[in-house]
C-alpha cells in the first residue's frame, strides 16, 4: 500500500500529461496536474525549511566542524524570512494606504530589496565568477597531450579558441581565397557545425530515447527503485 499509492499517482499523472499532449480537450487536465505539483512542491518547501533549521541547530549544538557557518546560515535564513514575510520597512500601497502590509515586498529601497541587491546578488555573482578559474584548471588537465585522442582534442580546442578571436583571424588572413577554407575562423565554423553538431545530436538522440524509455518504466511501475526497493 505504501508503494502502490505513489505508483498509482505517478502513473495517473504521467498518462494524463501524455494524453493532454495529443488531445486538445484534455489540455486542461495537464495544466491541473502541473498546478498540483506546484502546490505539493510549495508545501514541501515548509518541510525543507524545517529540516534546514533542524540540521543546522544540531550542528551548532554539537559544535561539529564548520558549525559557525551553520550559525551564519540560520541567521541569514531567519533575517530574510522575517524581513520578507513581515514586509519590514515597506510603505503601504498608495491605493490602500490604510493597510500597512499592502505594499509590494520587493519595493525598491526596502530592507528586503537591500538584502537581495547587496547581499544575495553579489554572493551569487561571486560563486558564478569562480567558474572561470575552475574552467582553467579543468582545461589544463583535459588538454594534456597524453595520447592520440588527447592530442586531437588539444588541436581541435586550439583551432576553436583561436578561430573565435581577432588573433586567429589575423594569423590566417594571408591565405589566398582558394584556400579560404583553411582560415581559422572558417575551420572553427566547420568543426562546430559538422563534427560537433553530429556528436551532439548522437548524444541527444540517445538521451531522448533514454528519457522516453525511463518515463515509460516509471509510469508502468517497472522501475520502482526511486521509491526504495522493488518490494511492496
Amino acid at each position, binding site marked *: 500500500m505504501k508503494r502502490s499509492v505513489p505508483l498509482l499517482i505517478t502513473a495517473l499523472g504521467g498518462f494524463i500529461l501524455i494524453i493532454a499532449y495529443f488531445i486538445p480537450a484534455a489540455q486542461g487536465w495537464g495544466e491541473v496536474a502541473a498546478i498540483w505539483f506546484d502546490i505539493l512542491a510549495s508545501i514541501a*518547501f515548509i518541510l525543507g525549511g524545517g529540516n*534546514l533549521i533542524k540540521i543546522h541547530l544540531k550542528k551548532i549544538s554539537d559544535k561539529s566542524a564548520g558549525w559557525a557557518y551553520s550559525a551564519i*546560515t540560520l541567521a541569514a535564513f531567519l533575517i530574510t524570512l522575517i524581513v520578507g514575510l513581515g514586509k519590514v520597512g515597506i510603505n503601504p500601497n498608495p491605493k490602500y494606504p490604510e493597510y500597512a502590509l499592502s505594499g509590494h515586498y520587493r519595493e525598491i529601497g526596502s530592507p528586503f530589496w537591500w538584502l537581495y541587491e547587496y547581499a544575495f546578488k553579489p554572493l*551569487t555573482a561571486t560563486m558564478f565568477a569562480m567558474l572561470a578559474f575552475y574552467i582553467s584548471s579543468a*582545461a589544463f588537465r583535459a588538454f594534456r597531450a597524453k595520447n592520440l585522442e588527447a592530442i586531437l582534442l588539444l588541436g581541435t580546442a586550439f583551432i576553436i579558441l583561436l578561430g573565435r578571436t581577432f588573433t586567429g583571424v589575423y594569423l590566417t588572413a594571408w591565405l589566398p581565397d582558394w584556400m579560404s577554407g583553411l582560415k581559422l575562423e572558417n575551420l572553427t565554423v566547420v568543426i562546430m557545425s559538422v563534427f560537433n553538431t553530429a556528436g551532439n545530436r548522437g548524444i541527444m538522440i540517445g538521451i531522448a*530515447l533514454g528519457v*522516453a*524509455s525511463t518515463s515509460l518504466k516509471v509510469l508502468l511501475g517497472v*522501475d520502482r527503485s526511486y521509491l526504495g526497493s522493488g518490494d511492496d
Partner: protein
Amino acid sequence: MRPNIASIFFLTFTLFCKSSLLNGQENSFPNPPSQITASDHPWDHGEKIDLNWILSADDQISVKIYSIYKSVDSDPDSFIFIGNVNPGVFSLTVEKLDRKESYFFKVIAVDEQGNASVPIVTLSAISPTREWFDGGRFPLFIITIIFCGSVIYWIYRARSGLPLQIRKIAGLEAVDEAVGRATEMGRSILFIPGIQDMNEIQTIAGLTVLSRVAKIAAEYGAKVEVPTSRSLVMTAARETVQAAFLTAGRPESYNQDLVYYVTDEQFGYVAYVQGMMVREKPAACFYMGAFFAESLILAETGNTIGAIQVAGTAMPAQLPFFVAACDYTLIGEEFFAASAYLSGEPDQLGSLKGQDIGKIIVAAGIIIGVTFLTLGTVAGPETSIGSAFMAAAEYLKSVILT
C-alpha cells in the same frame, strides 16, 4: 469688371486636369480580390481559421501584396491588421485565435503606390473549433505508439525468459569500487542528485543510482550524505536510502539526518556543498541528475580533494566538464540505463532492448532524410524529381519529426 479670358481658360484647364487626375487615380486602384471564404482549420487546438479568396484581376499586373485583417464584429473601423501575403497567394491560415470569439476577416489588394482596393469581407462571423485530436501531432503519436509498443513487447519477452545481454558500463562498474574505497578510508560518500525537482526524469534516474549506492554503503557500513536542493527530492531520497538500508539488512544504520535540504538557490547550494567537501573530504562523490553551471565547480572541488568521482547526466552542455574532472562519466543514455544495469532485472533489461528499436527507427529516419536530400541535390532542385525529393525531405523534417 471685364471677364479675364485668360483666367477662364486657366480655370477650365485646371478643372480638366483635376478631373483627368481623379479619373486616373480611380483607374489606378487595383481590382479587389473576390469570394473570400473562411473555414475552420481541421485537426487543430481550436486556434486557427483557413482563409481563401479569388485573386484580384490585377494580381500579376499591379498588385504588390494582399493585406489581411480580422475583427470580432463587422464594424469597418474595428479590423486589426494580421499580415500580408504576396501576389499569387490565395489562402492563409490565421493562427492564435480565441475559440470563444467569432471573427470577420477582410482582404485588400494593395499596389506598388500603396493604393488599396475596395476590401472584401467575409459574409458571416466564424469561430475556430477545437478538434478531439491534434492532427499536427499524428506522426509523433504513431512514433510514440511504435516506440512504447516495442519497449512493452521486449519487457514481455524478457519476462518470458529471453536472455538479454548488456555491455559493460565502466561508470556503473565503478560504483562498488568507489563505495569500497570510501569504506577503507573511513570517510563519507557524497551523493548529489542534481539540482532539479522530482518532476525531472534525471532526478528520478539519479535516485535509482542512489538506491544502489546506499545499499552497498549499508552493506559496507559506510556513511552516505545526500544534500538536496529541493524539498521533494529530500523526501524521496530519504525513502530511497531507508529502503536500501532495509534491503541490505541494516535498517538500524539508517540516519535520516544525512539526507537533508540545503537551499533551492543554485549557487547557494553549490557554496554549501563545496564548503562541506573541503571540510569533510568525502572519499567518493557521485553526481547523478540534472546539472547546470555548478557541475564544474562541484567536480573540480571533488578533484582537488582527491575523491573518486562518478558523474551521470543528460545535460549535453555539462558532459565535457564532468568528463574533464571526474573519473567516470555516464553519458546521456548510459545514465538512464543505470537502473537496468544495476538491478539486472529482466523487466528493465527488456526496456533497454525496446530502446534499441527506437534507435533503429531514428537511424532509418536519418538514412531516408539524407538519401532524399542527396538525391534532390544530385538531380538538381530545379528539376521536378529533384524538387520532389527536397520536398519529401522537408516534409520529413518539418512535419513528421517536428
